[in-house]
């Protein structure tokens, strides 16, 4: 994606959804290119990848609050409050979340790992959001569809472009 194409995508305005069909290495290359372009233009980019996406030396809750903690002056208490406000909206039980939020990513299950990435994306709005279609497959079938729909609504409100891979 060239700089000019990226700029035109960014200029399309809020709520616009862009679907890209990419596979394999072109996908990784595009993410890197988008990362570079976002850095140059001081935009934030969320990638909800099939795997990875978290920092291995930080606990799950530290991973979740990191971008907000870095970019804002919110206290840890305020960040925890924001996190707890998400729970009823998304149907999570605070107690069950608390059981794994203190774990390092290596100790998380596949779905907890993805939930960590999802919550982080929900907490801090981004300019560009990239979702791998296979990201949702980590969740049980009964909630996966609901999560996708809720996330779509959330992203359309908060972000300017939504890029999704359809493989």
């Amino acid at each position, binding site marked *: 994606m060239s700089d000019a194409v990226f700029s035109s995508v960014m200029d399309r305005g809020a709520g616009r959804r862009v679907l890209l069909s990419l596979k394999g*290495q072109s996908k990784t*290359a595009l993410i890197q290119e988008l990362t570079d372009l976002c850095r140059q233009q001081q935009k934030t*980019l969320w990638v909800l990848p099939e795997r990875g996406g978290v920092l291995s030396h930080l606990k799950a809750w530290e991973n979740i609050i990191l*971008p907000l903690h*870095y970019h804002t002056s919110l206290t840890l208490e305020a960040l925890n409050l924001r996190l707890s406000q998400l729970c009823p909206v998304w149907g999570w039980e605070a107690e069950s979340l608390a059981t794994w939020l203190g774990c390092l990513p290596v100790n998380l299950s596949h779905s907890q790992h993805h939930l960590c990435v999802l919550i982080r994306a929900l907490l801090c709005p981004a300019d560009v959001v990239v979702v791998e279609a296979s990201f949702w497959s980590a969740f049980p079938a009964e909630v996966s569809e609901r999560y996708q729909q809720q996330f779509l609504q959330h992203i359309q409100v908060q972000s300017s472009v939504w890029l999704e891979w359809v493989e």
Partner: protein
Amino acid sequence: MGAMSFTSLKPPVSLPHYRWHTVLWASWRDLPALRRPAVWRVWQKQVYFSGIESLPVISLIAVGLGLIVVNQIHFAFGTAIESTLEMTARLLLSELAPLLTCIFMIARSSSAIASELAAMRVNHEFTVLEQMGIAPSAYLLMPRIWAFTFSGAALAVYLLLLTLLAGAIYAVGFEALNELGVLLSRIPLSLFAVFMGKILIFAYAVAVVSCHCGLSVHLDWTAIPVAASRAVLRCLATIFLFDGLWAMLSRLTEATI
């Protein structure tokens, strides 16, 4: 199924290469980022891991060192108590305390920093940070380097005081605190300046070398232990080289004066 190409297994995008002077420059350029709570937290955590968690072992080393040095100087060579303690203090301030503290920190924290950074690099976690709009140098390198330097200085002061106290208690018993008070008033301030200068420069250099070793890895899991051992060896070489240069410069300065 098509033939597998080994080249396809290589990472498609190359990460930026961090040179040692890039790390050095980042540690100063990104210093204002310490005002951010998230970065300040990294600094605090590094001080905890490198400094506070080291206290039990460094205490043991300090007590042992105090006993050994006083034993050698006073009991083996038969010098007076005052001279023994003064020689111990001068030895510690000019050489032993900065050097031993750095060697201890290299063994304990340098390899940990290098392997942690190497693992993050291999995992492409630097890219994750960039995607969040977080500069890896400001979040990962700068706070670690300065926390390591601060911990080094604090541990060296602690080692110095505890070694002197242990040595004094061993030599004179309960009069130790009085002896130490008199001793510290006799030591010239320039020696304290040399001590602080050495430990700050050595610890800073060790931190930069450790970070650089962690960052300059190939994107391969086998590179992580290599980075850790390389960090230890390079840091040791660096501080002995710096100490040698310091000795040469001191001699040259004295000769000139």
